[in-house]
């Protein structure tokens, strides 16, 4: 069956174990995390009502179930993932019968069994730490609630029909593929904090990514901890980066068109649009030159 987008919401009562929950999603071979957002709704009750408005279960049924959320931390974490192996089945009964992916349902229950608060008999309560849906209609609705006007179309966007480019890069029809000196490549790094931040152009050696590889893991981990889920919404982690650096080979089969994308901001000086991790690895491997795609 064709891949489908799904989403998970880690509620306020699950934030203390959010890292483990996200690791569980990462380790599930059927799921590929695309985005992680941290969101603070102005009114949790209204957010829940809106988020569930496209759910198969009517809100009155969920009202009791979601009462506990109003007492929890108001922040939530939303994870958008690609379900690479949907196994849809007719589940539930009566008025609540619906089609759902049994893998997503099974995964949700496992997370709830593991992380839901326990009662005095050490049994799982129904104060769920996670909500999940494999309905693309609901995922689309959730994204629009978060301010993504295009909804799911935002993730399905292909900026270029020939070479690989992530959805967040503006569409382009013209580009050059050339070999340049690594010293002429620069990266935009976010400086400051969430209230007051700016983008700063710096050389590859001064990125937290390069410093992580060069023996200073703290700066990269701090960078992610401060900005992850807010200004950095792709799925990053130190473990993932370490694994990537270990197995890394640039432009080898089947990734011949997965170029680091750059823009020429001054003659013969290039700013990375996508691929800071890869360029940091290439620099760490002491490469002098790199083949890039220069977006026009």
């Amino acid at each position, binding site marked *: 069956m064709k891949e489908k987008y799904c989403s998970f919401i880690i509620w306020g009562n699950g934030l203390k174990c959010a890292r483990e929950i996200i690791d569980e999603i990462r380790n599930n071979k059927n799921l590929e995390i695309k985005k992680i957002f941290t969101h603070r709704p102005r009114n949790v009750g209204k957010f829940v009502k809106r988020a569930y408005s496209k759910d198969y279960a009517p809100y009155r049924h969920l009202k009791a179930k979601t009462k506990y959320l109003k007492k929890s931390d108001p922040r939530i974490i939303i994870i958008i993932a690609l379900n690479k192996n949907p196994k849809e089945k007719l589940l539930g009964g009566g008025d609540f019968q619906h089609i759902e992916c049994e893998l997503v349902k099974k995964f949700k229950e496992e997370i709830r069994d593991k992380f839901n608060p326990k009662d005095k008999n050490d049994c799982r309560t129904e104060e769920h730490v996670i909500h999940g849906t494999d309905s693309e209609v609901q995922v689309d609705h959730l994204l629009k609630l978060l301010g993504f006007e295009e909804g799911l179309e935002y993730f399905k966007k292909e900026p270029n*029909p*020939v*070479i690989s480019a992530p959805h967040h890069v503006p569409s382009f029809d*013209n580009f*050059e593929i050339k070999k340049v000196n690594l010293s002429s490549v620069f990266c935009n790094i976010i400086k400051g904090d969430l209230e007051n931040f700016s983008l700063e152009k710096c050389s590859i050696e001064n990125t937290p990514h390069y410093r992580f590889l060069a023996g200073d893991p703290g700066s990269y981990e701090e960078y992610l901890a401060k900005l992850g889920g807010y200004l950095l919404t792709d799925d990053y982690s130190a473990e993932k980066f370490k694994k990537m650096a270990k197995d890394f080979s640039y*432009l080898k089969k089947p990734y011949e*068109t997965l170029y680091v994308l750059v823009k020429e901001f001054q003659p013969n000086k290039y700013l990375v649009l996508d691929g800071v991790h890869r360029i940091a690895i290439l620099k760490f491997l002491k490469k002098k030159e790199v083949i890039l795609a220069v977006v026009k």
Partner: protein
Amino acid sequence: MSYSDKLNLDSFFWAARDQDYVVIKAPDFSPDYHEGGDIDIICKDKNEFSRKIIEVGNQYVDEGFEMRVSIKEEMERAYIDFYKDNKLEFRFDIYASVQSFKKIRLKKEYLDTLLKNKTKIARGYNGIKYSVYIPSEIDDLLLKYVEYVEWAEERPDKIRHLKFIASKISSDKTKLSFLDRLHSFLDSSYVEQKEGKSKEKGPGLKPRLKQRASRMKKGLKLKLYKLTKKLRVYNLYKKIKSKT
């Protein structure tokens, strides 16, 4: 124009051997190509074909070439230019449509017929035999005819295509097949539309103004009439004054 073999064209076509395509102007396809020359390819999937070219192109970029790629989605076309020292070495001109001509239009369905009837020429790459696909004899004649119509005014040398066609359709069978194919896939409605458009331009400003006025509201319509009446009167006054 000098010949060059810095790019091994077989390396590209070997990579694209599973693609559905034809190379136009096949006699130009040879191990040596004209430096600054190009090759035209009509294919089913221009994005996938372009990707194959770029994948092989990486090895040449590593040797100092640059690939300059331009995708024209609305024209179903892509160019991949190989440059060395800022000089064009060779261009792959890739089309996924047979409707890129302006003066003459082939029906969209012709692409399938062209690819279905393709024939092959034997090639070799690294000691392995493979095929490069070219149009059938009849389709080759048809495409030469279309190119002649398209370019004859700007490039009189294209008359050679007509001479080539005349030399090839010596037998009745070939003549009939060629004319039948042309008749089946020439989009005559395109020519009629172009003629129709030029007729529409004929009447001029007055009828267009009338049309616009009829869409306006009553009050505005009246205002416009009064204004133009004033202008007409003024112009008449000017005319009379100039004569006296």
